[in-house]
């Protein structure tokens, strides 16, 4: 029996090794390794491209060594790593023999150089296999570590990678703060972290994580048990710190990062709107970008002197845009009221595309500007203060986000919010409970559309012009993706999702090309592994894991009886 299981383990390791190798080859051939290798995490030691391959190999080995707690685990991990790197080595060999580049555009000599560590294929491929084997053994070792060490290691490696990847952002921030700038010089050099800096972060975070594992619970309990006055003071302190941070953020971050922040903010607005439609009411709307476009175009038509219809100010156009967004939400909502699930998704996708095609057409050009769009949209002003630069616009967007966030937070726990969630869970039961389906659904569409139109209005004044190409289906997919990654129906989840999915690609230009690839993979992975999202809403999480909880609860119950 034991022998049989062991044979099974060997076979599984080879199989996992082959799969891992295939994944690594795919990652290499789609150009990610080469694109990422321009950025060093640790200067002259580890580039992001190599880190990517290493991560893939480690992950495969971790899976292969699962369930083994002896030398066998090391061997299984090592085998998986070796097999995977052999597959990768096969790619290098193939690339040196035949011109792969005629088909695979990214199979360049640079890639093969990277994969064989700058050597010729002969010492390069064995070197690759050796490193793969070592990575596999390392993966097997990590698999056998106790849980606290494992999480400490995970956090510290994450911190090093994070510091390396976000160096362009961290360095100017650190440099702006007198004494901290010396720290920045110590940790960073021209192209990445210094070796000492990387080691320091690694040990520091690992140590901190271990201490937290030991004492963290007690500390949290201590805070909870503080006398009423003290805990209230602590809370006020936190909130005022947060407010101060939010207000000062553009000054701390500088111009470029403020620009990123405004983009993230616009997506937060959009995400909060779609969160109501998809997250609260469960109506999968893939044409959501249409309302964004309606908001933008309304402001453009009402304010731009280019078309010559109206020349209102931004502030008088804004309510019209939001109102029109809500009305169009109802108008597009009525026809799809009776549809559910996938039909609704496709119908709304159709609507979004119809609106984009109409805006793009020559037929409506005199009114909407056709493919050239509408320009010369004035900036928003407020009592002599003009929201022009990203740093100023930030406050406008922040105000919008706070307003929309507050509204959706209050709506969530209201009667209508609970009606939305009931509709999400089961329409028929909700109707049987006396919920007016028509009104509830239309209100969800209208609210979501109004938020989206608000975002669109700010977007129009931010850019100063609108083009139909800014409103393609990708935007809808981006928004959907960020609320799903953040956690459907969760308001902080939207912010986390927007920061992760919109902010990061803006910071990492190499990453930008693979943005939608990663989004797609993230959607699939989230649905397969963690359907409740990164920052789940409590109720939704409970529902998604209901089955599992039931079984785990029923076991001790049976034992008792």
């Amino acid at each position, binding site marked *: 029996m034991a022998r049989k299981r062991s044979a099974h383990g060997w076979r599984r390791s080879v199989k996992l090794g082959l799969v891992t190798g295939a994944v690594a080859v795919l990652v290499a051939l789609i150009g990610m390794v080469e694109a990422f290798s321009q950025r060093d995490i640790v200067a002259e030691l580890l580039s992001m491209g190599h880190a990517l391959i290493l991560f893939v190999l480690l992950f495969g080995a971790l899976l292969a060594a699962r369930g083994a707690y002896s030398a066998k685990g090391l061997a299984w991990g090592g085998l998986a790593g070796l097999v995977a790197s052999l597959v990768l080595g096969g790619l290098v060999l193939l690339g040196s023999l035949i011109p792969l580049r005629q088909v695979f555009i990214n199979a360049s000599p640079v890639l093969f150089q990277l994969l064989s560590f700058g050597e010729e294929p002969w010492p390069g491929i064995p070197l690759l296999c050796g490193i793969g084997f070592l990575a596999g053994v390392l993966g097997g070792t990590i698999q056998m570590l106790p849980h606290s060490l494992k999480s400490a290691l995970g956090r510290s490696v994450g911190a090093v990678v994070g510091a390396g990847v976000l160096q362009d952002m961290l360095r100017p921030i650190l440099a702006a703060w007198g004494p901290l700038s010396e720290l920045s010089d110590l940790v960073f050099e021209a192209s990445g972290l210094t070796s000492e800096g990387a080691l320091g972060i690694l040990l520091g975070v690992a140590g901190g994580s271990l201490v937290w594992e030991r004492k963290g619970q007690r500390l949290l309990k201590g805070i909870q048990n503080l006398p009423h006055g003290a805990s209230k003071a602590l809370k006020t302190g936190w909130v005022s710190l947060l407010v101060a941070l939010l207000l000062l953020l553009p000054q701390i971050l500088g111009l470029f990062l403020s620009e990123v922040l405004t983009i993230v903010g616009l997506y937060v607005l959009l995400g909060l709107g779609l969160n109501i439609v998809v997250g609260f009411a469960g109506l999968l709307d893939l044409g959501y970008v249409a309302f964004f476009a309606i908001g933008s175009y309304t402001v453009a038509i009402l304010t731009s002197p280019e078309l010559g219809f109206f020349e209102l100010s931004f502030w008088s156009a804004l309510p019209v845009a939001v109102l029109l967004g809500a009305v169009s939400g109802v108008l597009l909502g009525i026809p799809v009221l009776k549809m559910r699930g996938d039909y609704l998704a496709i119908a709304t996708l159709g609507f979004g595309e119809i609106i984009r*095609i109409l805006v793009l057409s020559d037929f409506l050009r005199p009114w909407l500007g056709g493919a050239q769009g509408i320009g010369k949209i004035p900036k928003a002003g407020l009592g002599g203060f003009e929201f022009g630069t990203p740093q100023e616009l930030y406050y406008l967007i922040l105000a919008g986000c706070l307003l929309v966030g507050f509204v959706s937070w209050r709506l969530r726990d209201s009667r209508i919010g609970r009606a939305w969630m009931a509709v999400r869970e089961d329409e028929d039961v909700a109707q049987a409970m006396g919920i007016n389906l028509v009104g509830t659904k239309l209100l969800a569409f209208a609210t979501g559309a109004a938020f989206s139109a608000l975002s669109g209005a700010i977007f129009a004044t931010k850019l100063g012009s609108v083009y139909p190409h800014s409103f393609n289906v990708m935007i809808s997919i981006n928004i959907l993706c960020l609320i799903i990654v953040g956690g459907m129906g969760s308001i902080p989840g939207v912010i986390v999702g927007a920061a992760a999915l919109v902010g990061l690609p803006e910071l990492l230009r190499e990453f930008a090309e693979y943005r939608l690839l990663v989004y797609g993979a993230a959607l699939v992975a989230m649905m397969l592994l963690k359907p409740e999202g990164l920052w789940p809403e409590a109720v939704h999480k409970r529902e998604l894991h209901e089955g599992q909880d039931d079984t785990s609860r029923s076991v001790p119950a049976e034992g008792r009886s």
Partner: protein
Amino acid sequence: MSEAVKDPVGGPETASGPPPGLQRRHGEGMLRKLLERFTATDLIMWLIGGGILTLILAGSAATLSAGKYTIKHWIDFMVFGLAQGSIYALIALGYTMVYGVLRMINFAHSEVFMSGPYTAYFVAAFFHRSGLLESHPVLSMFMVLLVSMAASTLVAYLLERIAYRPLRGAPRLVPLITAIGASFFLQYTFRGLYGSGFQAYPVVKALERQWDILGIRVLGFQVVVIAAAALMMGALYFFVQKTKMGKALRAVSEDKESAALMGIDVDRMISMTFIIGGMAAGAAGVLYALMFKQVHFFMGFIPGIKAFTAAVLGGIGNIPGAMLGGIFLGFIESLGPSLFLDGLGIVAPYQLKDAIAFTMLVLVLIFRPTGILGERLAVKKA
């Protein structure tokens, strides 16, 4: 839902109600029942639908009376529509079969469709460079077709194994979101693998000439597209209706549990569905490349949605329906812009070709979600 809106509609309806006299009481009961089911939203929808229908009729009448196009033009449009429609029909088969067994829209099917011709492009380009395409056009096109079908089939199979199989029995939105994610993942994977530019498909000279068939002059590749699509659809229909495996497939799409009890390997049949859909999509892809002469990583998106429209038009889950729906959509799309948009005085009506297809999609979903031929699934679905 019904009580709120009885009154506003009630007035005019009762006024034009049934004539007094025989069976009055019965008629009133019917009318009341009808009114209870007929709500304000229905009224708005019918108004929209009626408005669009009026516009179409008015536009068509204006175009036909203006006499801008001759019979020859219309025949050209029809042939083009038939060719385009048979491609839609082939893609629609994949949607409709997957919907039949899994009750989900395989959103990533458009990428299954794209992956085939994009992979086969490199084979076609190789044949073109070596001159084989000119000397042995039939053989080399057949090879290209085979490669395309193989690539699409592989993608479809892996898609089902990796992304969809672990999600059996998950809440409805979960597989759909997975499919959307998989769609974008595949698009950008192929973009990374093969590059982001448009690749011009090599042209077979023999197919670019005009052929004379029954007095109608048609382009060679249109004939090939129509004939190949008809052949494929015939073979597929035979497979599903007459073979043992086809019977098992149909059994799984009727009722998975009962099929499993009858000794049918349900997972294998689901894989088989994806494989057949992939083969049809791969073939459709090569035909599409023959017609439009270029491939691109984003080429699947629009034909994918249109093929889905075709599947819904014919009644989703219904195989002959998908074929019929595809051809119908092809006709509407090729005739529509000149027939009713031109007559309405719309500038550059061909820009709105896609809008016609999408409008049709939305209208079908609203007014007849069961499609032309579909009744069987209507009650259970959605």
